[in-house]
């Protein structure tokens, strides 16, 4: 009975036809549109037709026309306006059920301004706190140039990442992200390595968050304690006089200067006998990181993190507040800039320093969005403006970073203090009694507490998905993963709370793969497959890869 009702011409026959033809012409996907209409039972008055008559006869025409052409002719390929709308297309399972193709237009399309804002919001991270330190490490002039240069470089790499799924022929890449592109070009190696490097950036961010959260929690607690007990303790020997206090928390031996300042500095773990019991229980490196575990580990083990996605607005508010804070401080402190080009002075740093790779490492993480830019740009209403919107977003991010970095660096009161004192977290340069900074720290603390579980969720989804195929294999698996991540954070916060170094190392490592090597390789391979790879292009992209490697190597030596 089944054999009797098979149609005269089934789609399998046309499939064989395609195989016999020259299959090298696969670039025109219009000849292989996924448009199939199921046969209809013409005898019985069966269930209602799920296929419109027009679609059925158009399908018959397509089958016929495809037999008339040579394989490389696209003359009789159906143009776009002839194919039915996506909501009229059905997918048939062999068991007879049919369901509609989910329209990709159901996702809301955002105007350009929203897309630009989303990119800015996502890119703005904790690296903003390290900008003044980074500029200090590279020297003021060189630092500004490097920010601009690295920003442009990473914009270009982001552009080629964004372009990469579009040049993949005859596969539907509409929901691919960059790791999928890597998998297409480099197989399993590409998939695993892009995943691993993506993990580096995420776990690096989580470790930085832990260090910063311990810092902010400590300072907040300190402030509240001092306020309640009306204590006026100076945090450091080295600080400015006047109403706007800026401190140098760890005045190291200043190379080249007449060091009249005592090298004794208040360490939280001081040998003094009169250490406050509060200070013993509320220590930035010894106890506070552990207190956070009680709060955050349960949050990490939650199955879904969608609750925390509501709080992304806190990040925007924090950045805006930081900008306001920086402006106010700069106005009050005034500018203290002196240009010493290559020589070291007591209070200032040279304009060009050899430590500039530290800034490039920080910037690689600061401008990093390459693992999710495709998803972010997908909902842009006018796709033709993608490049323009991306450039505008990078410009805004660069301006924000430059603004904060330059102003803090310039306003840092150098005659009493050394420019070298600028801390990797510039808020550390302000005493815990400063109200504006206290507010900033509280904001950032809340924001980080809400973003931390989101990051943990992303790590869990990607790792568990890759390793076990299931996003939540069992509570034990997830708990072990979370303990590992939290443990890394606590260790860093206890022994090496230098967020500048953590940022630059994780930035350089994940930037190597996802910013420099993979996009450049993918771009060159695409061009070569299209036969358009010129010598200049190949050389410049190879230089890009070398830059990425040099960036990473320099982090270890500088």
């Amino acid at each position, binding site marked *: *009975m089944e054999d*009797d*009702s098979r149609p*005269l*011409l089934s789609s399998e026959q046309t499939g064989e036809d395609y195989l016999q033809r020259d299959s090298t012409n696969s670039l025109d996907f219009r000849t292989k549109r996924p448009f199939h209409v199921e046969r*209809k039972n*013409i*005898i019985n008055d069966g269930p209602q037709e799920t296929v419109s*008559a*027009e679609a*059925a*006869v*158009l399908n*018959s*025409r397509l*089958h*016929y*026309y495809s*037999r*008339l*052409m*040579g394989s*490389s*002719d696209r*003359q*009789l390929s*159906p*143009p776009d*306006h*002839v194919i039915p709308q996506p909501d009229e297309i059905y997918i048939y399972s062999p068991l007879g059920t049919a369901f509609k193709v989910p329209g990709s237009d159901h996702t809301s399309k955002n105007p350009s301004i929203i897309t630009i804002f989303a990119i800015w919001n996502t890119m703005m991270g904790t690296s903003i706190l390290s900008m003044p330190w980074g500029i200090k490490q590279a020297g003021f002039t060189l630092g500004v140039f490097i920010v601009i240069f690295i920003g442009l470089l990473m914009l270009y790499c982001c552009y080629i990442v964004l372009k990469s799924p579009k040049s993949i022929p005859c596969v539907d890449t509409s929901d691919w992200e960059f790791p999928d592109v890597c998998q297409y070009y480099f197989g399993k190696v590409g998939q695993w390595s892009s995943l691993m490097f993506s993990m580096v950036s995420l776990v690096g961010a989580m470790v930085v968050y832990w260090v910063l959260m311990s810092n902010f929690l400590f300072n907040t607690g300190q402030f509240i304690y001092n306020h309640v007990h009306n204590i006026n303790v100076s945090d450091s020997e080295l600080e400015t006089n006047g109403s706007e206090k800026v401190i140098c928390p760890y005045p190291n031996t200043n190379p080249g200067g007449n060091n009249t300042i005592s090298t004794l500095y208040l360490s939280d773990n001081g040998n003094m006998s009169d250490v406050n019991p509060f200070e013993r229980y509320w220590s930035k490196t010894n106890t506070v990181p552990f207190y956070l575990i009680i709060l955050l580990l349960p949050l990490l083990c939650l199955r879904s993190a969608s609750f925390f996605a509501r709080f992304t607005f806190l990040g925007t508010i924090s950045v805006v507040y930081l900008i306001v804070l920086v402006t106010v401080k700069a106005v009050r402190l005034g500018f203290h800039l002196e240009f010493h080009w290559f020589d070291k002075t007591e209070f200032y740093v040279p304009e060009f320093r050899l430590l500039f790779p530290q800034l490039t490492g920080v910037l690689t993480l600061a401008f990093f969005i390459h693992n999710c830019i495709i998803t972010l740009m997908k909902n842009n209403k006018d796709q033709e403006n993608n490049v323009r919107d991306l450039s505008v977003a990078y410009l805004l991010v660069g301006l924000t970073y430059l603004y904060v970095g330059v102003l803090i660096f310039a306003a840092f009161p150098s005659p009493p203090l050394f420019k070298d004192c600028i801390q990797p977290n510039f808020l550390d340069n302000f005493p815990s009694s400063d109200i504006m900074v206290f507010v900033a720290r509280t904001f950032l603390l809340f924001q980080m507490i809400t973003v931390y579980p989101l990051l943990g969720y992303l790590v869990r989804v990607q790792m568990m998905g890759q390793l076990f195929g299931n996003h939540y294999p069992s509570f034990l698996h997830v708990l072990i993963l979370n303990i590992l991540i939290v443990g890394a954070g606590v260790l860093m916060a206890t022994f090496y709370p230098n967020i500048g170094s953590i940022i630059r190392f994780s930035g350089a490592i994940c930037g190597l793969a996802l910013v420099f090597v993979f996009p450049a390789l993918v771009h060159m391979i695409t061009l070569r497959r299209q036969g358009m790879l010129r010598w200049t292009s190949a050389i410049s992209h190879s230089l890009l890869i070398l830059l990425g490697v040099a960036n990473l190597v320099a982090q270890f030596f500088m």
Partner: protein
Amino acid sequence: MSSTAMKKKVLLMGKSGSGKTSMRSIIFANYIARDTRRLGATIDVEHSHVRFLGNLVLNLWDCGGQDTFMENYFTSQRDNIFRNVEVLIYVFDVESRELEKDMHYYQSCLEAILQNSPDAKVFCLVHKMDLVQEDQRDLIFKEREEDLRRLSRPLACTCFRTSIWDETLYKAWSSIVYQLIPNVQQLETNLRNFAQIIEADEVLLFERATFLVISHYQCKEQRDAHRFEKISNIIKQFKLSCSKLAASFQSMEVRNSNFAAFIDVFTSNTYVMVIMSDPSIPSAATLINIRNARKHFEKLERVDGPKHSLHMRMR
């Protein structure tokens, strides 16, 4: 008595790129040559070597090449081209930006027709209508039709709007063929009688070369309005497959427990398709009926020209 006179032509003309070759390929099931996207106009006429409606040969010409050589050739060969024409089918591209020029060439073709074959039938196809927005199609077609009717006087032209992406192309060519069949009304009457005698659900009469449905009879309402075009496409695909093996398609029987369908050669110009929904009638019976009917229908169609009509004796 068959005529050995010069074969009559069907001229398929139109501007280069208006879709004639695709149209011919689709209607006549020819493979499209690879060089169809030519940069220059046709220098020589393309013969299709198909016998169309018995004794007609399809000639395909590009009109209106910019090349002066092409113009001169066309002018000097004009009488040759336009002599003995039975049908002129002129294809207009609805998206053309040079309406004046198109009309000018069309008119010069009409003049040549008037001089050389004044009895020819003229059909105008406004093609590529799928490129026009749906709500504007009727309007634009009506405008063009009026212009063409006006320009074609004293000849009468029949206008169709067509697109290879919907059923309009098939229907337009079916109408053209219908008007070219001699004694078509008689054919239809006899077809109905034939169908009722053999107790068929539906009987279709196809033109042999193009499998366009000339006439049909159905005894009850059928669900699929597009079935003619679908059957036509299916059989043409089958013919293409057969030709790959240097075989030619002659007849087909499709049978299952619900119906039996027979496709067979009928007259020299036609094929017949008979659909029986009573599976108890053996195939042999239907085939004998078809064979007997063939003799009658042959007499309706004499090969010596469409102008003659014969009476058929009804038994």
